[in-house]
């Protein structure tokens, strides 16, 4: 049997509005992307080949799921138009639909299945037609059954519409409750109801109460209480004395100190109440008091320290720069350009010089080791556009959906905390470590981190 997954953009439009940085088809349900649940079910139902069809963009889904070899199946991608009927869908994938039996899963809905049950037998015996449905979704079989059974018990699954934040929250919590007994879920855990991902640091004085699901690269700091009913995504920091219960913290989110997330979804700087669908940006003084006060108190001293450090660095780099720059320029090893980057603060952007020192000769190596390529950027500290250490400046692109300037923890800088820490640089990982240090670092710590970044380049 083969499976066609047909999902139209209008069916998941609400996800794009609620969580603009997440591709709707990768919306995590208990830390597992939505599409993976569909793939798992299609495999349980006996499929060896699956094709995902949509009128929306599939690039990110394709990057994640690739060709399906991870699941031992063949996964391909195609397009449909929003108004295509079922026969039109089958016609557009005629070459794919050569098997007698095709299962078509349509709509953005969640299949409440049980991995212990053998669906393959059901699917081969069921007559053609719709075998399960809910508002906005259905499972239909095309082609004759292998053998006609006299009497078939009801299909042991239900479809649940995934059409608003409330249903998303409810389905996520139910999935967490039933856990690994029904679904294949990510994470490790010695006991039921507790799944923990890779690279998770849990402070001794924090408390974990089942059921919980914790993703990869997570830090739970001292005194934090996680659970019951907490889903923590990837690249998340839950700071001191904060509580998360009956809540979802989506990927790349920082939860400040002394906060309580109860019955809410937190994503980036937004807190969503799933029952009412209302969301607030986390600038509420109660919710972000930890971050704001730390930022305000230190900002004047920090600026002065950064200016002084920049002046010393510029003075140290000036002579090597004057000697090496003309030579490298002459040899064509010094390449400079401009890039437009996001500034700190809503809607702000500025042009930054970009420098690339190429070649492997002694001059180029020396210039790189001395970080001379950062000298043009250091001068921007005096104009107040950059800090000496903070976040990597994010270039302005049309694809940047969530503007970094709107986050509390974005401070464009000459050096980044991630390079000081030699953090495995991947955009989202680096961003979260940078945000953590922006909140926790002191001006003195900034200087030591800058030195560390400089030494790392030697």
């Amino acid at each position: 049997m083969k499976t066609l997954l047909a999902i139209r953009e209008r069916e998941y439009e609400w996800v794009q509005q609620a969580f603009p940085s997440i591709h709707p088809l990768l919306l995590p349900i208990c830390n597992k992307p939505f599409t993976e649940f569909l793939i798992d079910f299609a495999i349980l139902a006996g499929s060896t080949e699956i094709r995902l069809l949509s009128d929306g963009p599939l690039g990110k889904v394709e990057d994640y799921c690739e060709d399906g070899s991870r699941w031992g199946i063949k996964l391909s991608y195609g397009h449909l138009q929003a108004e295509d009927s079922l026969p039109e869908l089958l016609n557009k994938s005629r070459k794919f639909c050569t098997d007698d039996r095709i299962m078509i899963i349509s709509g953005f809905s969640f299949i409440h299945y049980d991995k212990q049950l053998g669906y393959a037998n059901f699917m081969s015996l069921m007559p053609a037609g719709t075998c399960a449905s809910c508002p906005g979704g259905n499972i239909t079989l095309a082609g004759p059954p292998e053998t006609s059974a006299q009497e078939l018990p009801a299909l042991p699954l239900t479809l649940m519409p995934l059409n608003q934040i409330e249903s998303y929250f409810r389905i996520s919590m139910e999935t967490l409750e039933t856990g690994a007994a029904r679904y294949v879920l990510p994470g490790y855990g010695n006991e039921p109801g507790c799944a923990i991902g890779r690279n998770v640091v849990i402070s001794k004085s924090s408390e974990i109460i089942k059921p919980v699901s914790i993703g990869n690269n997570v830090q739970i700091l001292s005194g934090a209480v996680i659970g019951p009913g907490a889903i923590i995504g990837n690249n998340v920091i839950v700071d001191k004395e904060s509580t998360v219960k009956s809540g979802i913290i989506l990927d790349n989110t920082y939860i400040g100190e002394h906060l309580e997330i109860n019955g809410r979804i937190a994503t980036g700087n937004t807190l969503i109440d799933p029952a009412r669908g209302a969301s607030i940006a986390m600038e509420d003084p109660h919710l972000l008091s930890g971050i704001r006060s730390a930022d305000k108190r230190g900002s004047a001293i920090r600026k002065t320290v950064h200016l002084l450090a920049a002046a010393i660095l510029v003075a140290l780099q000036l002579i090597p720069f004057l000697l090496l720059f003309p030579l490298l320029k002459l040899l064509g090893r010094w390449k400079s350009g401009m890039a437009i980057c996001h500034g700190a603060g809503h809607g702000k952007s500025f042009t930054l010089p970009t420098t690339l020192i190429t070649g492997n000769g002694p001059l180029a190596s020396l210039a790189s080791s001395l970080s001379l390529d950062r000298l043009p950027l250091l001068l921007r500290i005096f104009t107040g556009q950059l800090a000496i250490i903070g976040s990597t400046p994010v270039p302005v692109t049309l694809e940047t959906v969530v503007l970094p300037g709107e986050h509390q923890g974005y401070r464009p800088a000459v050096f980044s905390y991630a390079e000081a820490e030699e953090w495995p640089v991947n955009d989202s990982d680096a961003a979260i470590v940078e945000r953590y240090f922006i909140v926790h670092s002191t001006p003195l710590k900034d200087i030591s981190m800058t030195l560390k970044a400089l030494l790392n380049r030697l």
Partner: protein
Amino acid sequence: MNISETQAGSITIVAITGTLDASTTKELLKSPAISNPAQSVVMDLEHLDFLDSSGLGALIGTLRKKRERSAETLISCMNDRVRRVFEITNAHRIFHIFDDTAAAVDYATQLTARI
């Protein structure tokens, strides 16, 4: 680039082999079935190795001109590299895309019969 035209009832199948970019689009636009705006075509892209924005622009221009004359331009058998260009530009929203040329011909025949 090599272009071959085959008649399938009232529909012409235009099969393109090779590369469709700025240097080859003129040749495509000159081919009889493409230059006739009233002729519905199925573009068989099974052997199209490379498509860039100039080639895509030519396909979109063909679609527009034919739709103005109630004819159609359908796409069949595109590979992943070509599909990527369609998807980034959202061209998949305006074309009917098939994985089988015969299925595209059937669909085009139905469409033209309706008009």
